């Protein structure tokens, strides 16, 4: 077991931890924005896949991870506009449309991938940022302070979202739209507009989550690579009650279980790999069981708003 404690090992562990947590964190931040405004986006799984695929394509063509991430986010928002138009504007059932978006995103990206890249399966070369000074710290220097700049920008974006939700009139409107849309309408705000903006931003973050998964965490896209991560993001959102810092904590716990699985595989312990790949899902289920009572769902979630209908 002594191999567990070597510096390289712990460094690898932390890298795996962050790689496991970040895509979920970004996606769950997106889902949080949407749910706070009263829109349940079950399409986030598809959004992540679309974000992942197009970030991969863009990064391969432009040789820029940054442009790849941007493309992923934009395509995520674009796919989510289906939900915005059909569910927010026309009031169609959010669950049905959400599932359709997931199927659409998963299916399209799989077909596109198989027709374009299944022979070559190119990889996106990884890249890292060294932060002078900090990168020389043992262990942390080679793990946390050796991430790509995208890691730091992602963190910054989440802080910005947190600020938006708590410190701006826009955030106030979002919360009102999710809790009591009639109040927002009566106060002169627009429920449709607020929800549309929130949901498009949610789609952008969902796309970023998928892009992070493809470009940073795994350096390649594979069809259906999210394997339920979008649904886990929905659970994380409901556990975090609209608080971004809680989203971060829950996502980190999930990332820890992903990394632990990797560690278990590397040790001499004879644990079946099937059990190991189950671990993150078991952790999520356990968290859900333990915290089920504190799950918060905005009262107007998934309820379309029509003025004058009581």
């Amino acid at each position, binding site marked *: 077991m002594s191999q567990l404690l070597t510096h390289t090992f712990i460094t690898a562990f932390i890298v795996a931890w962050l790689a496991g947590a970040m895509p979920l964190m970004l996606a769950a931040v997106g889902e949080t924005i949407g749910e706070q405004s009263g829109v349940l986006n079950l399409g986030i799984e598809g959004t992540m896949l679309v974000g992942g695929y197009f970030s991969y394509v863009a990064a391969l063509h432009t040789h820029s991870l940054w442009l790849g991430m941007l493309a992923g986010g934009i395509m995520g928002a674009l796919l989510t506009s289906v939900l915005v138009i059909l569910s927010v504007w026309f009031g169609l059932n959010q669950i049905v449309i959400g599932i359709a978006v997931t199927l659409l995103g998963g299916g399209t990206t799989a077909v596109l991938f198989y027709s374009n890249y299944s022979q070559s399966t190119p990889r996106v070369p990884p890249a890292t940022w060294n932060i002078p000074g900090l990168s020389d710290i043992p262990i942390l220097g080679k793990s946390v302070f050796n991430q790509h700049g995208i890691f730091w920008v992602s963190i910054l974006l989440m802080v910005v979202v947190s600020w938006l939700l708590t*410190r*701006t*009139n*826009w*955030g*106030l*409107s979002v*919360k*009102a739209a999710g*809790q*009591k849309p*009639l*109040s*927002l*309408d*009566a*106060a*002169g*705000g*627009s429920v449709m507009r607020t929800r549309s903006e929130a949901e498009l931003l949610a789609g952008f973050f969902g796309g970023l989550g998928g892009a992070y998964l493809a470009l940073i965490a795994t350096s390649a896209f594979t069809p259906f690579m999210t394997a339920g991560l979008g649904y886990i993001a929905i659970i994380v959102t409901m556990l975090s009650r609209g608080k971004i810092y809680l989203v971060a904590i829950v996502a980190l716990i999930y990332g820890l279980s992903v990394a632990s699985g990797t560690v278990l595989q590397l040790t001499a312990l004879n644990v079946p790999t099937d059990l190991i790949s189950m671990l993150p899902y078991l952790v999520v289920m356990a968290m859900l069981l333990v915290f089920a*009572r504190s799950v918060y769902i905005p009262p107007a979630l998934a309820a379309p708003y029509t*003025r*004058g209908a009581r």
Partner: protein
Amino acid sequence: MTNTESSPANGGVIRLHEITKAFPGVIANNKVSLELHNAQVHCLLGENGAGKSTLISILAGLQLPDSGTISVDGTPVFIGSPRMAKRLGIGVVHQHSTLVPGLTVLENLMLGEPGFRKREKLAIQRLEELSDLLGARILPKTPAAELGLGQQQQVEIAKAMWTGTRLLILDEPTSMLTPSAIDALGESLTRLTARGLGVVLITHKLREAYKMGDCVTVLRGGRNVAHLSVERMATMDEDSARAEILRAMFGDELADMDDLSEAEEISGATVARREVSRIDFSSAPVKLRLDSVTTGARSMDASITDISLEIRAGEILGIAGIDGHGQTGLAEVVAGQQNAFRGVIELNGADITRLGVRGRQAAGVRYVTDDRLHEGTVANLPVSINLMLKRIGEAPFWRAGQIDKKAVNKEAERLIEEYTIRTPSPATRVGTLSGGNIQKVLLARELGEGSQVVVVNKPTAGLDLKTVRMVHDVLRDFAAGGGSVLLISTEMDELIQLSHRIAVISRGSIVGMVPNDGPDTAERVGAFMIGGAEDGAA
């Protein structure tokens, strides 16, 4: 931009001209014309369904009129959204709270403000100005869910006035207020009109209209049937004004009533009082007993904590409180729709805590829900089946798993006649009936065979005055026949007219019990209700 000093000129007027608005099957407003002057309290009186709320939604920008025009100081305006109404300086305090319970007072007030960043300092300043004007102290950081009723209303008014309003509309603001809180509201309004603000006060209670209003307009069946101008109000004494308003409110129906006093009573013209003298219930057997009952529900409305109470045979126990403070939880735990997490429920001394809805139904515990349309009835099923809904599978209406349509229809026809349910036939879908008739279906179902204890939740909400009266009579008769009633209501007058005792519920617990034995009952009930908050409105 949060400044009000655009003080409205005293001569300003908002004119509604021949406003018509029709909904499928009903003309809510039929060529209604009104003039709303600044610095006046204009009372809009009428029954439920007279078209008051529709008229207000039109002014508030929530509905568009089918025809007719609105002008402000002579300039025609189009009010297509609440935002446009706000821009014109029309602020509305809606009948149902529009505060978001999860946000603080300040956040609720800032909702809908222009600009990107929240400007809390400016908002706090503005709130202080308004607090002075209203004569109430409001703590900005209190979550809206924790406000007492009077405070909640003050915040609503502050919110309506937030951007410098010239016309303030209050939709039925007094239904759960105590007499002293109503006085406080009256004082606030006087201060506002003194500053040149116009006020529209909507109510179905005559005595308030007379007390607070400078002029009165009466709506009936969507039409403007009477207007008492400021000058006429000044020359008339209270009695003649009252008689004239009553004639306008009820028209021909007045002839059907025994005399004017009946009309006065049902229109809330007189101070509500239970005419029954004190009855000593101590010798009557206890029908229903709750002993420290607690439920584990998450929402505040559905959860109760440590409630103990007793209802004796023949007694009506009223439950007063701000809407959403555990009333639903209390009703459901008695009906068996929610499990008691702790505590014991007894019926006639027998423990029924573990019985389900079916078992309690059979034992004689019945529940008339406030959600008539969804929880109470199945809209697409016929009246007859809805009347049998809680006896499905029972003989003689079902035999060997087969429905006996003849037996069902016969029983349905009997109930339809007994409760004067207006329906074309027992086979009519219940969803097509009016609210009042649906409520009668519920009452007929729950108060029938073997009923011992009935829980009624807001039994008259949204009903016309005649049906209200019928419901009250049914409940009184039920109690007089030895039944027990747990009456949950948000109408103070109703509680006082019907109950023998009134318990006050707040945040899921009973905080006080008041015997209904004197003219000061409402005040004492109100004291307990305000007690929940640290700073009452009065």
